[in-house]
């Protein structure tokens, strides 16, 4: 009986992986692009289950809004704006077979190398032991000795900001550049000024009223996920993408003219700049304090270290706040939410307006 109990997660893991393979096959083969998007959403659902069973709840929280919610929504908008069906004519059969063979060989070699690097043989896959670095991270995340620890019980968020903050910083700048690129493409475009009319725009009254009830709840749940990032699964990224679902709901269920009542693109850009400034501040605040009181301190430093003895308090009145982690999570929440809000608003500009502007530009 206990054998069966310990076997169950592995059975679910294997079944969902096989089901996701079927969904991937259908998504690639399907010619109707809307159906392909839906198949890829099914695949994402199974992947979320796999992530959960591999014991990474942080990823589940960020993956479900991204891959099941936002990406299919955007892809469906894009398909509606462009071609509905894929034209597969003109692909030579020999080419596709050669590509398939070479891809298969490449992937099998890469996959086998991954196993070898990880566990020597398939007999002990996955291995019984964790890596040395993982053990060090796990042992020091909440040691209750400020000189060696990040003082956060959540190892993942501690690594994202405390141990590998520089990586996160540059990855945030990649996202910043992507949004700047989208803004640059749409530089002459703006959402047309039009009055929102309840009776003609958007979906039916049931959808509208329930969205009205549910929107503040989604936002507050996103805030909760973001602000408790240093205690429970979650953090700024997860909260930001969960909150971005609200923006897409506003645009889909009501219309973009209703969404612009809440924020214009310029206000969203402003709030996003505030978020990015908060990230920079949380990276440098300890160094600034050290500079002001004349002690050695580093950027990306949170808790005091042996050679730099200052740091932010890790608790206030018995509540763990883990130094700069709270500030970082709040700013990241704002930056991610507003970044996706900008992209959604840009994507929902009506096609006639865009074509008008582009025609002038091409000629």
């Amino acid at each position, binding site marked *: 009986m206990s054998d069966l109990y310990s076997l169950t997660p592995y059975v679910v893991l294997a079944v969902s992986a096989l089901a996701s393979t079927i969904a991937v096959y259908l998504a690639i083969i399907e010619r109707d692009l809307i159906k392909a998007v839906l198949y890829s959403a099914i695949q994402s659902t199974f992947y979320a289950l796999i992530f959960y069973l591999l014991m990474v709840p942080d990823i589940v929280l960020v993956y479900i809004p991204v891959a099941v919610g936002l990406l299919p929504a955007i892809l469906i908008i894009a398909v509606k704006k462009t071609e509905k069906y894929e034209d597969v004519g003109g692909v030579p059969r020999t080419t596709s077979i050669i590509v398939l063979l070479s891809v298969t060989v490449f992937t099998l070699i890469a996959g086998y190398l991954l196993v070898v690097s990880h566990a020597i043989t398939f007999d002990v896959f996955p291995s019984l032991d964790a890596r040395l670095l993982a053990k060090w991270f796990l042992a020091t995340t909440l040691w209750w000795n400020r000189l060696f620890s990040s003082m956060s019980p959540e190892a993942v968020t501690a690594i994202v900001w405390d141990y590998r903050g520089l990586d996160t910083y540059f990855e945030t700048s990649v996202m910043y550049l992507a949004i700047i690129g989208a803004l640059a493409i749409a530089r002459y475009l703006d959402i047309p000024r039009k009055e929102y009319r309840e009776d003609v725009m958007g979906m039916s*009254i049931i959808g509208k*009223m329930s969205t009205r*009830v549910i929107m503040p709840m989604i936002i507050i*749940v996103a805030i909760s996920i973001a602000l408790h990032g240093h205690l429970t699964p979650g953090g700024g990224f997860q909260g930001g993408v969960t909150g971005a679902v609200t923006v897409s709901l506003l645009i889909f269920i009501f219309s973009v003219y209703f969404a612009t009542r809440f924020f214009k693109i310029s206000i969203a850009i402003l709030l996003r700049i505030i978020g990015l400034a908060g990230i920079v501040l949380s990276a440098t605040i300890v160094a600034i304090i050290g500079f002001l009181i004349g002690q050695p301190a580093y950027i990306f430093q949170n808790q005091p270290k042996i050679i730099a003895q200052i740091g932010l308090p890790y608790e206030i009145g018995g509540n763990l706040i883990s130094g700069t982690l709270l500030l970082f999570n709040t700013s990241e929440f704002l930056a991610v939410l507003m970044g996706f809000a900008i992209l959604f608003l840009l994507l929902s500009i009506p096609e006639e307006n865009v074509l008008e502007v582009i025609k002038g530009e091409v000629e």
Partner: protein
Amino acid sequence: MSRIIRAIPVAILTFIVYIVFTGSATHFDIVTGVIGAVIVGIVFGSVVITNTYKFLQLQRYFWGLAYALYYFFIAEVRAHYDVIKRILNPKMPINPGIVKIPIDVASDYSILAVANSITNTPGTVTVYVHPNKKYLYINWIDVVTREPEEARKAISYVFEKFAKKVFD
């Protein structure tokens, strides 16, 4: 001013959701929850709430509780039993069709409550709301009558009575 008055009920509601979702009520949770709830209330207050003073009338809460008890323990159980019986019956006795029922409530939230209750009970799905908000079109798994008033008695009369007491 009306913006702030409207923000208060939304802030209280979202604060409750925050505390329930977080699952703890330390000082940290309460402070962050109040800040977040106030921000959300100010942003969304004007779209969610139309009449704040309905929130002050206590009898609405008792009627809401009665609605919930009736809905969960009588309406849902009866509808589930009925449709499960139809599915498991080898002959599958279904007689589907779209009927039209009149609805006589004032606020949009009442329409939402009635329509969602109808859809959430298996056997009936709201297909369309008439633009003048006086009729609902229901897909019914077993059409016993096509007369609007009789269909109303069979499907939505009790929901409507409760929803009027709670939301209107």
